[in-house]
């Protein structure tokens, strides 16, 4: 469990590190765990152009999911070493709120799982009151059958619900649930197979400095935090490089080992058991 004592100890440890031990993060590669190439973006620029943006941002890997699956497939075909394809249960972005009650989503997912290779399912939006519904339950079952990571934009209750249905699940908690470290920490303590991405979060760093409560969280769970851009509109593709640079800036405020883990090693470790699905 994530206790206050452990939290404080981690915080103190980080603070005592000599400044020389702090790595400059400017050169760190980035595992971006939150990229979408949805139908509206894919209609504006080609997969090659999108890959060029990711490469220019010096991403090592990108976990990509898209509303309308064609974008993900096109990106994966263009850059199989860079792109990690994740199957999103949305045919259009407008299904974010309706998919849990739409049985045709299951047909879509089953068809796509049969026809293509994936490392994950998501990013999907699922909240505590919805975890008992048939469509998300079947989606989680499909993920179990095919050994896929689950990328969940969820509240803490839904994360608990996913693990209740499938205790061995491996879950990436999008946006760290948009909750504070005092909620994230206990969740990471409770679920050993839970990772977080910090996409669209800003609270953890300011002016290149990592805030104390987040620093403590990172130190307490050094293997469980990843970063991501979240390209939820086409325009945000032009934010990928800036986001990567901003991330490198605040990572430089952490000890090198920890910075490197958050930058890319944690993402690699999280995805490694699922890479076999791509073979």
């Amino acid at each position, binding site marked *: 469990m994530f206790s206050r004592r452990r939290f404080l100890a981690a915080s103190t440890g980080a603070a005592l590190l000599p400044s020389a031990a702090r790595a400059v993060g400017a050169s760190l590669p980035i595992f971006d765990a939150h990229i979408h190439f949805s139908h509206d973006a894919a209609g*504006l*620029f080609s997969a090659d152009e999108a890959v060029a943006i990711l490469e220019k941002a010096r991403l090592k890997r990108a976990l990509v999911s898209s*509303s309308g699956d064609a974008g993900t497939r096109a990106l994966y075909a263009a850059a199989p070493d860079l792109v990690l394809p994740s199957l999103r249960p949305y045919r259009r*972005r*407008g299904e*974010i709120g309706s998919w849990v009650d739409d049985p045709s989503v299951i047909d879509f997912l089953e068809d796509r799982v049969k026809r293509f290779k994936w490392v994950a399912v998501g990013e999907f*939006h699922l909240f505590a009151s919805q975890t008992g519904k048939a469509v998300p339950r079947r989606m989680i079952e499909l993920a179990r059958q095919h050994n896929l990571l689950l990328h969940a*934009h969820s509240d803490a209750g839904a994360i608990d619900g996913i693990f209740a249905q499938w205790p061995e699940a491996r879950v990436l908690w999008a*946006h760290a649930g*948009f909750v504070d470290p005092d909620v994230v920490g206990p969740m990471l303590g409770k679920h050993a197979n839970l990772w977080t991405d910090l996409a*669209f*979060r*800003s609270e953890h760093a*300011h002016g290149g400095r990592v805030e104390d409560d987040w620093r403590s969280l990172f130190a307490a769970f050094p293997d469980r935090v990843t970063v991501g851009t*979240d390209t*939820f*509109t*086409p*325009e*945000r593709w*032009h*934010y990928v490089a*800036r*986001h990567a640079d901003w991330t490198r800036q605040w990572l430089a405020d952490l000890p090198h080992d920890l910075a490197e883990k958050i930058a890319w090693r944690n993402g690699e470790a999280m995805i490694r058991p699922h890479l076999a699905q791509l073979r």
Partner: protein
Amino acid sequence: MARWRLGGPVLAAALALVLAADPAAACPRPQGWTGGANIAGELWTAWWRPEPAPIPVGAHFSVRFHLCGPPVGRVGVRGWMPDHRHGMNYRPAVTLDGLSGTAEGLLFHMPGRWQLILDVRGASGREKLTGETAPAFDFTAREKRRILRHGPWPLASKPDPSNRVSGKPAAIGFGRALFFDPRLSLSGAVSCATCHQPDRAWTDGLPRSRGQRIVDRNAPSLFNLRFNRWFGWDGAQDTLWAQNLRPLLDRREMGVGPGGAARLVRSDRQLSCGYRRAFGAAPGADDERVFVDLGKALAAFLETRVTGRTPFDDFRDALARGDATGMARYPAAARRGLRLFVGRGNCSFCHFGPAFTNGEFADAGVPHFVEPGRVDPGRHGGIRELRRSPYTLLGRFNDDAERSTAARTRYVRLRQSNFGEFRVPGLRNVALTAPYMHAGSLETLAGVALHYSTLDEERLHAGGERILRRLDLSARERADLVAFLETLTEKGPLHESAMKTGNALCR
């Protein structure tokens, strides 16, 4: 006449009309009537008047009416709530005397939009005359609180402490001369007034403005700038004087730069004299110092452009003092639009306060590609530019040694959500400042109402509190919203063109 009790359960409404073309000419107001409303049909035209007026909610009232047209055999009177699809709980009794009559025993048992229907029958036929009652005074206590926050107007103001010539007449005159001087551009052909034309409410009417070249954004109006916290669509400037330097630095706009501007002021007799009168000394050798002073003189001038009172202000103040007669002058459609604005539309959440802006930034779901492959980062770029700029409240050009207004700059935080956010504009005189949004992508206010009515929520991030929602307004509701927005605009000509003809700075 019954008094309207502000704090009680009484809701009053004045009858409004659905008018055909000048029906009053064919059917004059009955002798001895004051007030009342007129409704024209094919066969009959009716004047009608509630007693008491305004109509109380939850209390019985009567309606007197007078018809023009062929003889009448029978008239039925009833109330109807079209949005709820139900009528009254009471069936009024009608007494008829020729073409005049009275209906007794009506009661509106709930607030909201009520129609009054006269069902007229005679040998010539049957006709239902439907009049809108104007729910002028049926705002809930919560709506009323929100409405009252949009005033009083005008706001009190004081000089900007970061600008030592703020409010000084000599600086205002000097700033006005600078504003219209094209020599402050590299080409010598572009002045501030090229994009901010006084007879166009200080805009240019273009989606994206053209200085020396086309720029990325729409030229906003210059009214009420003195009340801003941030300046520019991206808030890259924290003072009005710094904002005035931006086009002088940007080669797409005017681009004269510090050296060119300072040389012009030093070499031109009128400008040099204007500078001396405004600042108490001749322009010095420090180009940048002179340059910043030009921004401050321009700011002194622009601070004077404050919008006047509007029909909304008259209504708002009447509401504040419980003046039913004053409130009744406000058009029914505008009242309905106002209710949407402070209620279901939640517009007043961001368009807050007397200036109708919270002074901050929002992602309103508007695409922000400038061209294929290039994006306007909005507030995200603005904060980064602010931090790089020497012309901020934290810099050496702030005339306020106490830095008393610098908290905004000191504490502003760069957030990932800033990417694609743009300044929430004030809405005073909004009917005069088309096109709308940061790049002028919406041509009309009707287009703006349609944008929020059909908002693509998927363009907005799903995390956190969802302030903006797709409103799904009906055509009539959108028209009502526009009718309200139009009442935020001053009536009659603004006379801003007079700003163009100033006196010589020095003789």
